[in-house]
């Protein structure tokens, strides 16, 4: 019987992967988070652990030994920037470091890490399709992405130093679907959406169910390396918003940035000012490697992905 541990089961990705994995009765799942998941199942065990505590790595090492864990899915990473940048840094950067200590000291064979295509950063000099080999330039776009890139770099160093272990990094693009809630879906909730005057970048989306499926593939099969998990189509932002029946309000970039910075610091807005880059410049990832080497293809069309979200917004 395989034992798979998932960190961050109270977060969206962790919870989704938990739900998908519990259907496989031959796998014992260990949920690691500060609080227990709401799901109960025969093959589910919960272990409380705070990845930011000083003993996290020792606790995890003992846990992996005790349960003979062979795979770890690391999803204890925030899906949106928090105002407490220090805590986010502790959880994402330091928490990952402790987890990697524990894995290195145990017999865990596989590590799967949840990342995002935002780590490439949105820049005017991006190629139209960013391959996994492209340098991760997101670190210049605020503390949140800086932590994400740091996680990627730690994992890359770990993978290079531990070639006997299978390390997979999954980078989904913007996820939409009936259940997901983060700052991007929050932005899309309003009927009037601010865009940057004069800019209309190409964007891409992926359905949450496809992302869950990608994680299951990574757990059940061995695919070392990084993979972009994206939907099939690329569309200008304006067209996607028009399809979702949103009214667009183009605002000059400088004014929008000032407004968003003010709202962010006054804690009236979930979106950080650095997100404006993603409303101006492209950050579209190439899904060819995932299709060829990983066997992943999105099963939802662009319309289904956009409607899956829109449907809930109108409910």
């Amino acid at each position, binding site marked *: 019987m395989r034992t798979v541990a998932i960190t961050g089961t109270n977060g969206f990705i962790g919870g989704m992967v938990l739900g998908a994995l519990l259907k496989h009765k031959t796998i014992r799942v260990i949920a690691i988070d500060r609080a227990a998941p709401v799901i109960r199942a025969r093959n589910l065990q919960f272990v409380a652990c705070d990845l930011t505590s000083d003993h996290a790595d020792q606790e995890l090492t003992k846990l992996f030994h005790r349960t003979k864990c062979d795979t770890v899915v690391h999803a204890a990473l925030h899906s949106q920037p928090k105002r407490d940048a220090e805590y986010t840094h502790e959880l994402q950067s330091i928490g990952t470091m402790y987890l990697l200590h524990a894995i290195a000291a145990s017999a865990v064979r596989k590590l799967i890490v949840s990342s995002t295509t935002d780590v490439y950063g949105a820049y*005017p*000099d*991006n*190629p*139209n*399709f960013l*391959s996994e080999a492209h340098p991760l330039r997101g670190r210049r776009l605020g503390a949140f992405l800086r932590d994400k890139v740091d996680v990627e770099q730690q994992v890359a160093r770990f993978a290079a130093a531990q070639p006997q272990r299978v390390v997979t990094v999954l980078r989904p693009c913007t996820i939409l679907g009936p259940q997901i809630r983060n700052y991007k879906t929050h932005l899309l909730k309003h009927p009037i959406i601010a865009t*940057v*005057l*004069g*800019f*209309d970048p*190409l964007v891409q989306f992926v359905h949450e169910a496809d992302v869950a499926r990608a994680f299951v593939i990574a757990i059940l099969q061995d695919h070392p390396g990084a993979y972009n998990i994206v939907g099939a*189509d*690329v*569309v*200008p932002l304006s*067209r*996607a918003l*028009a*399809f979702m*029946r949103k009214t667009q309000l183009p605002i000059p*970039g400088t004014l929008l940035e000032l407004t968003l910075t003010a709202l962010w610091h006054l804690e009236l807005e979930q979106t950080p000012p650095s997100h404006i880059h993603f409303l101006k*410049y492209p950050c579209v990832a190439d899904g060819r490697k995932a299709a060829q080497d990983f066997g992943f293809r999105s099963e939802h069309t*662009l*319309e289904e992905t*956009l409607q899956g979200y829109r449907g809930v917004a109108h409910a």
Partner: protein
Amino acid sequence: MRKPSAASALHAVDSFGKDPLLVERVLPIFRWLYQQYWRVQVRGIAHVPTRGAALIVSNHSGALPYDGAMIHLALHEEHPAHRQSRFLVEDLVQYLPFVGTFINRVGGVRGCQENAKRLLEAGELVTVFPEGVKGIGKLYRDRYTLARFGRGGIIRLALDAKVPIIPCAVIGAEEIHPILWKAAPFAKWLGLPYIPITPTFPWFGPLGLLPLPSQWVICFGQPIAYEKYRTKTPDDLTIHQLTEQLRDTVQTLVNQGLAERRKLIATGKIQGAGWKRSSSARSQSREPRVAK
């Protein structure tokens, strides 16, 4: 034209940002420029293959990238297969609001190896201007002399994607905005590499941005296949030599094009371009221009 619904508009733009409906809307203006204003004459169109990818390498001039648009029209209107093409644009275009988006929607793609390779793999004709900003911003006194042809990226791309290079020369773009001097002040503030000072700009304000009606000739040369370099990537020195040879080829083509234009103007015979032109009788009776 009926406005497309949001549902059909969702997929109208291709994966590099080109919007065929917008292209259709702006095509009449460019067609008028092609046929009536610049009276573009095309030579050597048979050198462009009927099918398959190729890299069209051309000289660059004119302060604004009309030459790209005219090459696109030449390929579409004059070639028996009415080939579509894409053109690569400088990075700086993507920084500009409105202009950047517009150029993407009419088919311009940011010039980098990844994008070019992907387009070529899809079987597209890709037009590239190795001189870049140096070429388009050439002073009038340096006209028709090619600037440095990049850093070898073109040759590497052709070898990597296994496509032929078709040299191309555009005659006529140098005279549409003769740049007398390049002003550096204010340019950086606007995000531009320079502000061109021409006989009409900035003295006549926005009107000074209207191009002058020179006579254009576009020549396509023999395709270069680089067969013997495809099996093993040559070293940087060889790549530079090949780049210089390519530049010489395009320069020769430019000189041939200039001679052709002089001949056309001297004899007063501006031939019809293959479609029926209602004003062809009018243009043939026009006073021949005296070449400088």
